């Protein structure tokens, strides 16, 4: 029974510092590496957001604290227009590809999947190590692009040609080439990661762990991996064409020579829309794990959630052109894409209703992870509802590329990435680091974050409805937008306070890392397999290979005749 575990015990030889912490093949160490990379890049992305927000509130006035940045990047602390384009682009790129994916998939996917399926490690540990060092290289390339002549990419995170294909339009040359290269490396990294996620889940489940007994977080992670791996290919092809246009002088995207820039938009959004779900699903997965634990109830409609997730994944491949309603694409496509877009709200509604039904009449404990989980749920509903407006072409033709869109996608992305990410962080911190985080600081962090997040982005819906276009350097050059300036000042002050609200988190995180209360195996009394391993789990994860007897959400079952109201997956049900 424990042969795999014994094999591991003998494997536990002394590793050098390098093999243990830097070039480790242990999925848990790799997960933490991803976590720290993502947190660092969040700092970079956040600083860029600060520059943007300042420029939007007080255009062409010096940004406090940036006077030291030399020309031509900044001009005596003022953001020049070209650099504004670059920071918009790099903020979006970094947040989506170098914060959201490393934290939600890289960190939590890597850390949790083997533990949750009862495996000693990922299927291909060395590939796993390579995937981290590939994205590390990609991050270095991305950051380096700020320092090349002409500056960083500035064609928007969507990189539309001809802006991205020809330096004539933006003055940026190497920056965009490095941007394509950095993204290519990032994609390669997550392709390797995806192979590991899928193979581990499909082929290395503990005995008795049928697919329909997997924790929902695992379902979300592998659906995300499938979506990513099947959608990124066409964009890689498109990026090859773009790179050739830039370096070899071909004209795939140049109309004058027989090309078509719309091709890029199709290839980009065929990936770009599913990509949103790639980072959304793991965020929702964290919420789905936390809700039953802190309401001491089984998740409502496990199977419905699994099937809805799969349906949403499939649908995500046939909605991409809702980003292109005003692009000049064939108008006959507008109706089908509107319909499929609105259809996709059905599976998500099912998932959200299942979440709420899980809370219904539960014995709710508002711990920090639970607060973040409920907050994620609430904010995601706002994001989802406003998405329905944008999905119907009639409304989108007016709202496209306005601040309404900016507010909408931040409501979905920040709820999934930041709030969902924090849910996961507070919940699994004891398992990752063997110590508890401080609850009081956690709650302070939650309330400040929630309040200021809404204060930043709620006003932007109004700015968008007032017709304000996004990506404008100085919106108030237009008379009709002058009345919006107070809105932007308000949002900017709130954004600065939102950034400041992360200080309690950082203090709590690093303090708990070294000084937090020692966590026992299962501090939250949860059922999934990772909680049966020691905190933090040793190399090889489990002392004895676990066997699974039932699904992951057995709480407060009526026939339980024992003191506890829970039943871990590796113990048979009491009858």
């Amino acid at each position, binding site marked *: *029974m424990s*042969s*795999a575990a014994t*094999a*591991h015990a003998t*494997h536990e030889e002394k590793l050098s510092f390098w093999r243990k912490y830097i070039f480790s*093949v242990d999925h848990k160490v790799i997960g933490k590496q991803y976590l720290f990379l993502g947190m660092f890049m969040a700092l970079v992305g956040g600083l860029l957001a600060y520059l943007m927000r300042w420029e939007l509130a007080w255009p062409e006035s010096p940004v406090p604290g940036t006077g030291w940045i030399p020309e031509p990047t900044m001009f005596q602390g003022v953001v020049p227009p070209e650099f504004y384009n670059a920071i918009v682009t790099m903020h979006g790129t970094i947040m989506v590809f170098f914060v959201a994916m490393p934290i939600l998939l890289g960190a939590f996917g890597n850390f949790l999947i083997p533990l949750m399926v009862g*495996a*000693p*490690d990922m*299927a*291909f*540990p*060395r590939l796993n190590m390579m995937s981290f060092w590939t994205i590390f290289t990609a991050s270095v390339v991305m950051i380096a692009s700020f320092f090349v002549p002409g500056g960083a990419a500035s064609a928007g995170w969507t990189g539309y040609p001809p802006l991205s294909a020809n330096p004539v339009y933006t003055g940026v040359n190497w920056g965009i080439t490095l941007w394509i290269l950095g993204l290519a490396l990032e994609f390669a990294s997550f*392709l390797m990661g*995806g*192979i*590991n996620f*899928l*193979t*581990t889940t*499909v*082929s*290395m*489940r*503990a*005995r*008795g*762990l*049928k697919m329909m007994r997997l924790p929902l977080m695992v379902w979300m992670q592998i659906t995300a991996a499938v979506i990513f*791996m*099947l*959608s*990124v*290919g*066409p*964009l*890689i*092809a*498109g990026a*090859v*064409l773009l790179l*050739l246009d830039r370096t*070899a*002088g*071909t*004209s*795939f995207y140049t109309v004058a*020579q*027989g*090309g*078509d820039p719309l*091709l890029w938009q199709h*290839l980009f959004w*065929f990936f770009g829309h599913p990509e949103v779900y790639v980072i959304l699903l793991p965020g929702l997965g964290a919420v789905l794990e936390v809700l039953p634990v802190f309401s001491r109830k089984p998740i409502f409609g496990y199977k419905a959630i699994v099937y809805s997730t799969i349906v949403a994944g499939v649908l995500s491949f046939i909605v991409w052109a809702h980003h292109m309603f005003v692009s000049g694409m064939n108008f006959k496509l507008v109706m089908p894409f509107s319909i499929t877009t609105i259809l996709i709200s059905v599976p998500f509604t099912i998932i959200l209703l299942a979440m709420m039904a899980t809370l219904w009449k539960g014995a709710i404990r508002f711990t920090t992870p639970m607060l973040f989980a409920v907050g994620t749920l609430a904010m995601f509903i706002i994001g989802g509802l406003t998405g329905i407006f944008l999905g119907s072409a009639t409304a989108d033709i007016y709202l496209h590329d306005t601040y309404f869109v900016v507010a909408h996608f931040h409501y979905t992305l920040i709820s999934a990435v930041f709030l969902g990410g924090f849910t996961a962080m507070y919940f699994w911190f004891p398992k990752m680091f063997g110590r508890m985080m401080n609850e009081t600081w956690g709650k302070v962090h939650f309330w400040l974050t929630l309040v200021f997040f809404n204060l930043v982005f709620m006003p932007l819906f109004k700015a968008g409805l007032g017709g304000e276009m996004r990506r404008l350097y100085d919106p108030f050059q237009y008379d009709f937008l002058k009345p919006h300036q107070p809105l932007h000042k308000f949002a900017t002050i709130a954004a600065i306070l939102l950034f400041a609200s992360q200080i309690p988190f950082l203090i709590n995180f690093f303090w708990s890392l070294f000084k937090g209360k020692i966590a026992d195996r299962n501090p939250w009394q949860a059922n999934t397999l990772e909680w049966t391993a020691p905190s933090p789990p040793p190399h090889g994860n489990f002392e004895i*290979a676990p066997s699974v007897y039932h699904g992951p959400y057995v709480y407060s079952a009526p026939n339980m005749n024992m003191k506890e109201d829970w039943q871990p997956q590796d113990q048979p049900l009491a009858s």
Partner: protein
Amino acid sequence: MSSIAVTENYYEKTMPIGKMGIWWFLASEIMVFGGLIGSYILYRLASAGAWAEMAHHVSTAIGAINTLVLLTSSLTMVLAHAAIEDENRRRAKLYLGLTVLGGLLFLGFKAIEYTTEISNGFTPLSGTFWAFYYTMTGLHGLHVLGGMIANFALFVMASRGTLWPNTHQRVEYCGLYWHFVDVVWIFLFPLLYLSY
């Protein structure tokens, strides 16, 4: 591949991890070529006349020969796999070698083809068709090269006798990849060489 001891009754019964990994990898590779082929077809449909004129100058003969070469090497790959199943080291070595040779032949013909096209004045910059032609065959050629390197590594292992007893299933995995490269060519050949 991994340091994990995989014992029979530890896991739920499913596909071996190596095979599973290869299949997922191929699925994503299919999407890369799918995107490229899809774009090509859309452009082709959008521009009838000029494109056909350009497409007229490809060397259908070399394309056809290369199709044969690649199909043959797929056959030798299958035979190599069969030899592995029979634990026949000599034959495995022979067929792996022949497969590598097939790839080499393919790339050789490709090189001749490229040089004649370019000397006739058809470069990647001579129009959208040519841009696609070089991109698609070029990317495919890189895949052939990758497969050849993998097969060559297996050939070396077979010669040294290190392919047994634990790693012989790699022949099957490389075979899957090699057939994939072949199948892609089966799509590229009519699209690029027979479309005028």
